[in-house]
């Protein structure tokens, strides 16, 4: 991220939205809106004085809304560019013309309430799509009680809780009582491999849960993990070894059976009902916390983006590519990589990114206009 | 639902029954119509399947054709059933897969002269039988070990005789008597008919003999308060004043006798000290009558009426016996016996008549009236109102069942009639055989009986008990209900409906009670199956599936 931010040939347009793309002069003319931050990017050094004084609390989307940030904020500490942004939906000054304390405390005078969203245009020879993924909201799976039972959370929420920069400073504290969760169950295929929601395999969740369970044990030696799975898809490089390590060294309990229902037991403890398909017995298990390994989806506006670019997407919004030319979209000169094409993990994304770069650079280096090659 | 069905072939055996069936039902036509592609049957006809030759043929056919179900279409189940079943079982067919179809009483005998219709009906009946056989589960007899010992309840002459007699066969016996002393009613009797020996002395001798037998244990002042188990293995709870103990035996003999009705309010009894019962009179005879010279005896006091329509059988003989005793003691005694006519044979009647005893017959519509010193009675024979002076009036009251016997009968699963006597399933053909095996009833508990009758019943019971106890195991056709425990929802309707107390409600782990069948008590009547809302209880030998298939077949739907 930092490398990209620093590379002299990379211009980073963060907080920006592609509005329109047209084919011109053998290349693309791209119209972009650069959203107003109400902070001058060239002046702000992200010292945080403004954040310390801002009175307005806002759910922190980066931490899955598990804690709060202020109306003036840095999306996350390592974010690039390291510049404050004022959230116009919450900022009291921008909404009611009151407050403005950030502007008062900023010694550099970086706050600029008059800043407006501005347009930008780019003329490029190729476009690479890497719009990534979003995760499935498990609320419709009412049998899992997400949103109703406090200690049923999603994998992404878990990631924030176990993260040192997260809302609990890396402690796996329960939503209900702030007590450390020792017994944690992971529910695989929440929304994945499910014809009602996502009929495909999200590919990364099995390993993700194993990793999470191992992290949990590293943070808390008393941690006991249960992973409820059907096929355990440890297909990637060294994944099988990783699973074996999780089982043997971290004591992860693997249970073959998809969780049928999560009920609320005493003390806000979730109770899982499931068939252990290997013993063929219906069992229930009470744990401190349940982590739903939710399905991964393309980003919600992928379909709209596809429409704008004339790129074919499937019914989920994944960019359609061919096995023999996996970096090429249906639109010439437009390439894709990563999760926007379909579920894949990090090394695959990286390889695909290089592949897309290869295809894009072939085009750009050839100097031939699109459609003329 | 359990998987039921025969894999092999069904053999249908049609019986001509000599000239009973063949002339009415066209067996040739019938043979041709039975069976078909979907019904793997072989058909055989002979003159008498019950004959020795017929049975040999039946067995041979079973073996030759490898049949695993048999339908015999002949006469009634009752007559032919055991024989045919026995033959088929010996040839390797399961008991429950031997089905009897009654072509005689149910068809030939009632449809004479309508050959075509009778044949058509016969076909449906046979079809029904085949359907039943096809769906019959293979059932094995219920087998259990036999505890070679007996309990005798009641220490009167019946019980003592049984005890002594069983002990003589080296069978350990425990006799349970509720009184402190043995002997029962005979202790209160003066002399016995027809020997005129001393009753109390006699019974004392019998009791002493029984008590002295090393095979007999006497538990007096004890009563049976609980019964569990079944033939070959009963467990009785016996309570005495200060203890309660368990008794394990192979069979139970019920010999509790009967009570003598106390005629309160009848013929001034209780108000007039000169009016006594026959039993009181027996005691007076033993101790001497004193000055009483004119004695009026009234028969059928409290019996043969609306409340107790039965004849107590023993009272008239006792009365006559007593008149003879009185005349021996007081030769000039004037004895008048008022009867309603004798319903039973009465011994020594002529002897009493010739000794001067007057017998008058009264009309129950105009019963005698006991005055201060006369009894006024309308003599039916002379159609005259007669007044007889008396010093003593003796009332002959009937034997009535002890309440306790009725309770005991309930515990033992023995039905009692409305008077509290033990009922018999069929008084003519199966006397002395009560529903539960291993329970034998002797003496007046069963029906008013004379000493002689009590004793002969005792010997009979002994023989049957010994027969039972001589086998190592007891077998029984599984004509019983069975509860599917997974289905039973513990409502208890079956237990309430069962007349034989064969349903026990047990506690289960899931907090819902479960019915279970005491297979020894169960008579396979099927009442439980009808009241069960869940159809959890079923007769294994006659399942709803079989019944429905039979109904369908009978209705011609095949």
């Amino acid at each position, binding site marked *: 991220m930092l490398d990209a931010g620093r590379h002299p040939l990379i211009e980073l347009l963060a907080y920006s939205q592609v509005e329109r793309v047209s084919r011109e002069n053998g290349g693309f003319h791209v119209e972009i809106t650069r959203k107003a931050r109400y902070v001058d990017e060239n002046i702000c050094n992200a010292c945080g004085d403004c954040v310390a004084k801002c009175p307005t609390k806002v759910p922190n989307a980066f931490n899955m809304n598990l804690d709060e940030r202020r109306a003036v904020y840095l999306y996350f500490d390592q974010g690039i560019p390291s510049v404050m942004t004022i959230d116009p939906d919450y900022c009291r000054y921008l909404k009611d013309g009151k407050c403005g304390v950030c502007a008062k405390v900023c010694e550099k005078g970086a706050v600029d309430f008059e800043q407006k969203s501005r347009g930008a245009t780019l003329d490029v020879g190729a476009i690479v799509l890497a719009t990534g993924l979003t995760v499935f909201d498990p609320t419709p799976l009412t049998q899992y009680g997400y949103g109703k039972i406090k200690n049923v959370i999603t994998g992404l929420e878990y990631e924030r809780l176990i993260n040192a920069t997260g809302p609990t400073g890396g402690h796996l504290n329960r939503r209900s009582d702030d007590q450390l969760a020792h017994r944690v169950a992971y529910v695989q295929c929440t929304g994945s491999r499910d014809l009602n929601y996502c009929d495909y395999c999200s590919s990364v969740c099995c390993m993700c849960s194993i990793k999470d369970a191992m992290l949990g044990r590293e943070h808390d030696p008393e941690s006991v993990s249960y992973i409820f799975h059907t096929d355990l898809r440890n297909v990637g490089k060294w994944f099988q070894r990783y699973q074996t390590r999780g089982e043997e060294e971290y004591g992860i309990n693997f249970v073959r059976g998809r969780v049928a229902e999560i009920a609320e037991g005493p003390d806000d403890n979730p109770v899982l009902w499931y068939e252990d398909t290997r013993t063929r017995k219906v069992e229930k298990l009470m744990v401190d916390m349940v982590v739903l390994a939710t399905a991964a989806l393309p980003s919600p506006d992928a379909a709209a983006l596809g429409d704008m670019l004339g790129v074919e997407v499937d019914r989920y919004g994944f960019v359609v590519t061919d096995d023999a030319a996996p970096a090429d979209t249906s639109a010439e000169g437009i390439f894709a990589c990563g999760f926007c094409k379909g579920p894949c993990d990090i090394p695959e994304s990286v390889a695909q990114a290089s592949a897309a770069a290869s295809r894009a650079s072939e085009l750009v280096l050839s100097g031939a206009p699109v459609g003329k090659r | 639902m359990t998987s039921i069905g025969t894999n092999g072939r069904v053999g249908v055996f049609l019986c001509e029954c000599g000239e009973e069936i063949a002339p009415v039902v066209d067996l040739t036509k019938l043979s041709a119509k039975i069976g078909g592609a979907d019904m793997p049957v072989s058909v055989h006809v002979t003159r008498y399947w019950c004959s020795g030759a017929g049975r040999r043929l039946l067995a041979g056919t079973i073996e030759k054709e490898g049949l695993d179900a048999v339908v015999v279409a002949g006469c009634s189940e009752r007559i032919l059933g055991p024989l045919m079943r026995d033959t088929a079982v010996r040839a390797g067919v399961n008991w429950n897969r031997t089905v009897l179809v009654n072509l005689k009483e149910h068809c030939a005998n009632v449809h004479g002269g309508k050959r075509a219709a009778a044949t058509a009906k016969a076909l449906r009946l046979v079809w029904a039988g085949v359907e039943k056989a096809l769906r019959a589960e293979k059932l094995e007899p219920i087998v259990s070990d036999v505890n070679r010992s007996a309990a005798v309840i009641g220490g009167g002459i019946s019980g003592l005789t049984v005890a002594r007699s069983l002990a003589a066969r080296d069978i350990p016996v425990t006799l349970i008597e509720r009184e402190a002393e043995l002997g029962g009613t005979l202790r209160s009797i003066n002399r016995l008919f027809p020997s005129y020996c001393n009753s109390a002395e006699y019974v004392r001798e019998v009791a002493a003999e029984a008590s002295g037998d090393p095979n007999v244990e006497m538990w007096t002042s004890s009563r049976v308060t609980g019964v569990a188990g079944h033939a070959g293995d009963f467990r009785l709870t016996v309570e005495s004043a200060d203890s309660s103990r368990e008794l394990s035996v192979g069979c139970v003999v019920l010999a509790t006798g009967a009570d003598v009705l106390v005629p309160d309010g009848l013929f001034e009894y209780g108000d007039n000290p000169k009016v006594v019962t026959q039993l009181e009179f027996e005691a007076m005879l033993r101790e001497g009558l004193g000055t009483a010279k004119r004695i009026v005896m009234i028969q059928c006091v409290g019996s043969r009426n609306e409340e107790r329509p039965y004849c107590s059988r023993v009272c008239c003989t006792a009365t006559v016996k007593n008149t003879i005793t009185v005349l021996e003691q007081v030769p000039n005694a004037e004895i008048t016996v008022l009867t309603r006519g004798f319903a039973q044979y009465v011994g020594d009647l002529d002897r009493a008549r010739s000794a001067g005893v007057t017998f008058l017959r009264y009309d129950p519509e105009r019963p005698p009236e006991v005055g201060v010193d006369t009894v006024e009675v309308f003599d039916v024979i002379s159609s005259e109102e007669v007044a007889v002076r008396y010093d003593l009036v003796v009332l002959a009251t009937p034997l009535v069942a002890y309440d306790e016997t009725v309770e005991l009968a309930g515990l033992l699963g023995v039905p009692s009639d409305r008077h509290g006597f033990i009922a018999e399933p069929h008084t003519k053909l199966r006397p002395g055989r009560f529903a539960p095996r291993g329970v034998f009833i002797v003496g007046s508990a069963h029906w008013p009986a004379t000493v002689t009758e009590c004793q002969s019943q005792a010997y009979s019971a002994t023989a049957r008990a010994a027969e039972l106890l001589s086998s190592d195991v007891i077998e029984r056709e599984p004509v019983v209900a069975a509860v599917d425990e997974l289905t039973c929802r513990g409502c208890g309707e079956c237990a309430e409906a069962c007349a034989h107390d064969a349903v026990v409600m047990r506690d*289960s782990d899931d907090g819902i009670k479960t019915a279970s069948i005491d297979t020894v008590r169960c008579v396979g009547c099927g009442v439980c199956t009808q009241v069960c*809302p*869940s159809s959890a209880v079923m007769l294994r030998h006659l399942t709803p599936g079989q019944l429905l298939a039979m109904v369908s077949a009978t209705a011609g739907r095949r």
Partner: protein
Amino acid sequence: MFEKAIRETKAYYCLECGICTGSCPVSRLNPQYSPRIMVERALLDDDETMLSEREVWDCLTCGTCSARCPSTVDFNEFTRAMRIGARESGFEGVDTHAGILRALMELEARRRGRRDISWVADDLRVSSRGKVLFFTGCLPYYGVVFSELGVDTVGMANSTIRLMNACGVRPVVSRDERCCGHDLYWTGDRDSFKKLARKNLKMIEESGARTVVFACPECYAMFSQIYPKFVGKIGFDMMHISEFLVSHVESGRLSFGEKESRVTYQDPCRLGRFLGVYEEPRALLGSVPGLELAEMPRVRSEALCCGSSAWVGCTRINKSIQLERLSEAADTGATTLVTSCPKCNIHLSCAAKDKDTDGGIEISFLTDVLSDALAGGTES
């Protein structure tokens, strides 16, 4: 052997994940019963043994498994196909109540309609022809069978008519009505079911009704979801009484008087998971002043079945489910458990009758509760 059933129910998609069995209220109590194993046996075994087994009849057809199945295997249909197969092979389920109810239904399929509406209370207004028909279902004749449980199904039918009258509607109650065929359908008796369906549709056509109102969700589900599959398009509107009444409450035409009580509500499988009607009954209860609705933990699509269906299988397993539901209901602190399905009412009442403990909960039918509130309310 089971190819057609596998294809029609999409059983072949089974992922062997166990969600069905883990969800099944029967499997939780009876380890012998497993929807997953049944489906997989159909897929893997090429023999009919399964048809002869009691498990074919153990399914409640509550639909919880199918609602959750990630492969959308229609286990209810699978069960029905097995039952049809079982029947054809001569194996039948264990009819409850000694088969009386089945006999009644089969009779109605063969003979004429019931010809009797004398059960309609004298103060109610019904007609023989009209725009709105009240399909009474089994209510009029279950009264005899279940009165000993204290379940007055005739009363339920009358309270429904009373409420419709209060809305100014004088419904058709037909003498030619028959059983909807629900129980025959779900126990694999296709022929009788189809006969009933045709006769009922003819009856409605002859009544001139444009809208049919149901008090029983089973009838409603049969008419709206199953009939069209077998006898073609339905030419009239259908609604549950709760849907009918809600529209009148919303328009202000119907209102209730004060009724202080705390109730809880049982979502019937048919009305809920099958038809998706969750809110209307709650809205109606909510419109009674003073009436407080306390919800059980498992509600709406997650509601626990009343434990029995179609008069097959009324075992200790079913009873355990009923007792479990009753205790869930009692735990809400409610004094009354309201249900909008007469069958739920019967089944839960039966278990409540047997229950050894004190402090059981009263079980009431939705229209009875509302009709009572009507009587105590304003006479406007």
